[in-house]
């Protein structure tokens, strides 16, 4: 998966390059993370063009907002993922998107969770499919909704009528399972 031709910087160097507005920072940011961030965005927004618009907007936001990133509170990539997810979720929930897209809006989406759990589970990417097959069904839906589709744990708890604590522990168990897969 890792392209050897990519421009690669160690995280502290990348952060410095971004803070100093160096071109190599933008190059490395794009080469190292555009694919992963696109994957994140597209789990929330199925339409590729809209997802790419959001990705571009998110990259610009990361570039311009790098001063807001606090290295003491976590990795750069985690911060970038959250910028992207928030942007993607805002987009999905915007009136504009709901009018424009044939996709179900967030409420309908959540209401159809039960159906989705049984029959509409169609992860498009081999990686996701492989990943989620490692999980038990009750973990699978929660990891997918929270990690991949951007729902909050409160939304998931409401919609699936599962206590918040249970949502959190199932999410955790799922992540532990995936961690084994990566090791």
């Amino acid at each position, binding site marked *: *998966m890792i392209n050897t031709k990519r421009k690669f910087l160690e995280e502290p160097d990348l952060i410095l390059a971004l803070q*100093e*507005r*160096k*071109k190599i920072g*933008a190059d490395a940011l*794009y080469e190292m993370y*555009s*694919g*992963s*961030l*696109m*994957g*994140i965005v*597209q*789990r929330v927004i199925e339409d590729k063009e809209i*997802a*790419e618009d959001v*990705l*571009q907007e998110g*990259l*610009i936001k990361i*570039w*311009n907002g790098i001063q807001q990133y606090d290295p003491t*509170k*976590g*990795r750069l*990539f*985690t911060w970038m*993922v*959250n910028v992207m*997810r*928030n942007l993607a979720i805002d987009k999905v929930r915007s009136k504009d998107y709901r009018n424009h897209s044939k996709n179900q809006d967030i409420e309908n989406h959540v209401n159809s969770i039960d159906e989705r759990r049984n029959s509409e589970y169609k992860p498009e*990417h081999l*990686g*996701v499919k*492989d*990943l989620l097959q490692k999980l038990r069904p009750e973990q699978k839906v929660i990891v997918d909704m*929270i*990690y*991949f589709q951007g729902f*909050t*744990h409160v939304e998931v708890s409401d919609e699936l009528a599962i206590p918040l*604590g249970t*949502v*959190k*522990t*199932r*999410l*955790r168990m799922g*992540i532990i399972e*995936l*961690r084994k897969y*990566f090791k």
Partner: protein
Amino acid sequence: MNYVNILNKLENIKSYIESGILELYVLGDLNADERSEVEAMSKLHSEVRDELEQIEIDLGNIAESLQVMPSDNVREGFFNSIKFSDEEIINPIASKQEAKVVSITQKPTNFYKYAFAASLALLVVSIIALVNVNNSLNNTKQQIIALQSSNQNFANRVNYLNQEVTKTTSALDIYSNTDYKMVKLDGTDNAKGAKIMVAFNSKMQKVGLDMKSMNMPKNDSEHQYQLWALVDGKPVDLGVFDMDGNQIGFKEMKNIGQAQTFAVTLEPRGGSVNPTLEKLMVIGNI
């Protein structure tokens, strides 16, 4: 702190970690209070810190396994929208487009600007050229006038010399012609030292005065000298002449066939019918 307390504490940290709150923290799915709590726990307990780090690594791994390569126009759009501190030109395509826009909108403006400047320059050059041509035309005109004038002077001079030559030649002819008799008239008391040579050709009835050798007082504008011939004692008018000192050659007078004496009197301008003897100047016998 006893063993049980330590165990309890470890148990508490373990259950805190396993509550799943750290995953939500990493995903940004917590409110401000919960976030502060996680950050405080992370500072206090390395187990929490390590687990947070691990969850972040998990997220990275998951995201990497989900990656989808975006199309190239995302890169283009991104690079066109940002500015670098270390490079002037962000993107060759962007600058190309910019150059295109410039060429469309500014070319006419530049064209007229240059055209106007060129016209102005041409006007200035033309005016300078015109002034120069006019000056040299005036110079040429003056030169032509000067040349014409000197040409006229030269012609006059040639004309004058021609007359001199003619007069001198005719004088020479007269002197060398044996038919002429040279009569010398000498000054009276009225004009002592005065002298006139008269050439007389009785055959041709011609009388001439040698103006060059003539030595007479200059006459004023109201008087003229008059030449008389005495024929058998009677004076005959042979014409008037002036003495201004610059004449040459022979001045031809009226014709006469014979005479005994020539005389010159000073008469009112135009001459008189009879000679004024009081004003007899020179006289000589043939």
